[in-house]
């Protein structure tokens, strides 16, 4: 096998498989973690019957969903009905390709250097935004193809919601891009390392807007209108069951994880340990960096991502749901002007500092 083939095809393929596997596992356990954390907030016991402390619950759920009857409503548009969940899942997973899970070094496997990310694209952030907005098609099509009233309302809501929150979602990142001067995900983390500053400090407003729009983009409480169970039963996926339903869930949780990863990368220094330039804190690497400089990065990245995800669940445990018109109002009256103000402010301060 030629060297080029291995470098350009086999290694990325293996990377993709590993990331897919880990992501699928993470999603499965995310559901369990969500149920556990919500249960603790609500003074309940969490799932505990399957396996020790309910650790096998996600597997049981997966098997249940796989074995369930897969119903397609008689009047539904069969092709679109099947296609829609797939359309939602693919962009969610694609986005994972751009996340740098660690950095500062690469692994040497059989003499080939393997980086801890799948791809480092120089327009990474823009690509992420583009990809993440594709998911809404699946939701819209799914709601439409069900040929039923509640899903239709749900998909209408989601179309409006996701399109409006796309704007602040994109705008809020621009501050970070201005500070780092690059749109590559890896580059942004390296810029934070160089600046000795995680960007959530100068970009606290940007972080807030990005996170709120991220929650809205992924349809989570308090913005879970497309699937508001108290109003629309289950919104766009009312008619879905079995594996197709599982795909929607998979997409939702993957997008959650992706947004958390982006927040970590852009605002919390990605794989960097706290105060990476202070050598007195080097014990925070747990000596793993002696094995490979990229190893401690994984730990810090996953820890930060988990904390961001925890905030997601925390919000869900605390807040009521917005109403459709209020959500729109929040997006257009507050989020977008704030995001633009943030861009102008960051730009102005940068100009002043460069003088």
């Amino acid at each position, binding site marked *: 096998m030629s060297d080029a083939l291995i470098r350009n095809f086999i290694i990325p393929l293996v990377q993709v498989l590993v990331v897919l596997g880990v992501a699928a596992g993470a999603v499965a356990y995310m559901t369990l973690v969500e149920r556990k*954390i919500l249960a*603790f907030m609500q*003074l309940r*016991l969490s799932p505990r019957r399957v396996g020790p402390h309910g650790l096998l619950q996600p597997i049981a759920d997966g098997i249940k969903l796989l074995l369930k009857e897969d119903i397609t409503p008689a009047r539904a548009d069969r092709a679109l009905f099947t296609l829609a969940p797939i359309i939602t899942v693919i962009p969610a997973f694609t986005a994972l390709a751009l996340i740098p899970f660690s950095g500062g070094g690469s692994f040497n496997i059989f003499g080939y250097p393997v980086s801890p990310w799948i791809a480092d694209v120089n327009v990474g952030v823009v690509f992420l935004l583009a990809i993440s907005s594709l998911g809404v098609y699946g939701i819209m099509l799914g709601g439409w193809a069900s040929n039923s009233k509640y899903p239709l309302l749900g998909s209408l809501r989601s179309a409006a919601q996701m399109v409006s929150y796309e704007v602040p979602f994109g705008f809020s990142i621009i501050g970070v891009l201005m500070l780092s001067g690059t749109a590559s995900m890896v580059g942004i983390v390296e810029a934070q390392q160089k600046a000795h500053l995680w960007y959530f400090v100068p970009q606290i407003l940007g972080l807030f807007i990005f996170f709120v729009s991220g929650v809205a983009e992924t349809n989570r409480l308090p913005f879970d209108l497309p699937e508001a169970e108290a109003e629309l039963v289950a919104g766009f996926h009312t008619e879905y069951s079995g594996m197709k339903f599982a795909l929607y869930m998979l997409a939702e949780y993957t997008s959650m994880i992706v947004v958390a990863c982006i927040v970590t990368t852009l605002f919390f220094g990605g794989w960097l340990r706290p105060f990476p330039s202070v050598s007195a804190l080097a014990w925070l690497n747990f000596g793993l960096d002696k094995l490979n400089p990229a190893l401690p990065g994984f730990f810090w990245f996953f820890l930060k991502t988990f904390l961001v995800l925890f905030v997601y669940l*925390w919000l869900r445990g605390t807040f009521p749901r917005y109403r459709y018109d209020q959500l729109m109002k929040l997006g257009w009256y507050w989020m977008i002007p704030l995001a633009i103000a943030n861009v102008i402010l960051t730009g102005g301060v940068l100009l002043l500092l460069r003088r």
Partner: protein
Amino acid sequence: MGMQAFLQKVLLLELWQGMWVTLKNQFRPHITVEYPRETVEFAPRFRGVPRLRKDPQTGEELCISCLLCEAICPTECISIVAEKRPDGKGKQLVSFTINYERCCFCGLCVDPCPTKPITAIYMSHDYEFAGYDRDAYVATREELVDGKPVKIYTR
């Protein structure tokens, strides 16, 4: 708008307070129990299924077949057949059935029961029911008096 109200609005203070409540509660002990493994304790007056009992001293059945419980039961789920005692004094039970499918656990049947000091029919603490057919829910006299908890799992 005062300064405080303004800050409250901008800094989302009330939202943070709410989040603090849920965070705090996360570290409180849970209040639910894992049911089939643990069960809650009942108050002494808890009304489970109605059953018959024997005199704890003599071990004889207490019921004197006065039919008062049958008369007051609002769902008509008790049916008693009684006959004259051979010695001519009062009556004795031939059969006594309670149809648990209809019983609404109201406890009215205990009120008029004339046997003293404890009533012949009483509300037990048994509550676990599950069955695959309806006949299983018709409890006969023998099942009512033997004191074993009712468990109706038949297949």
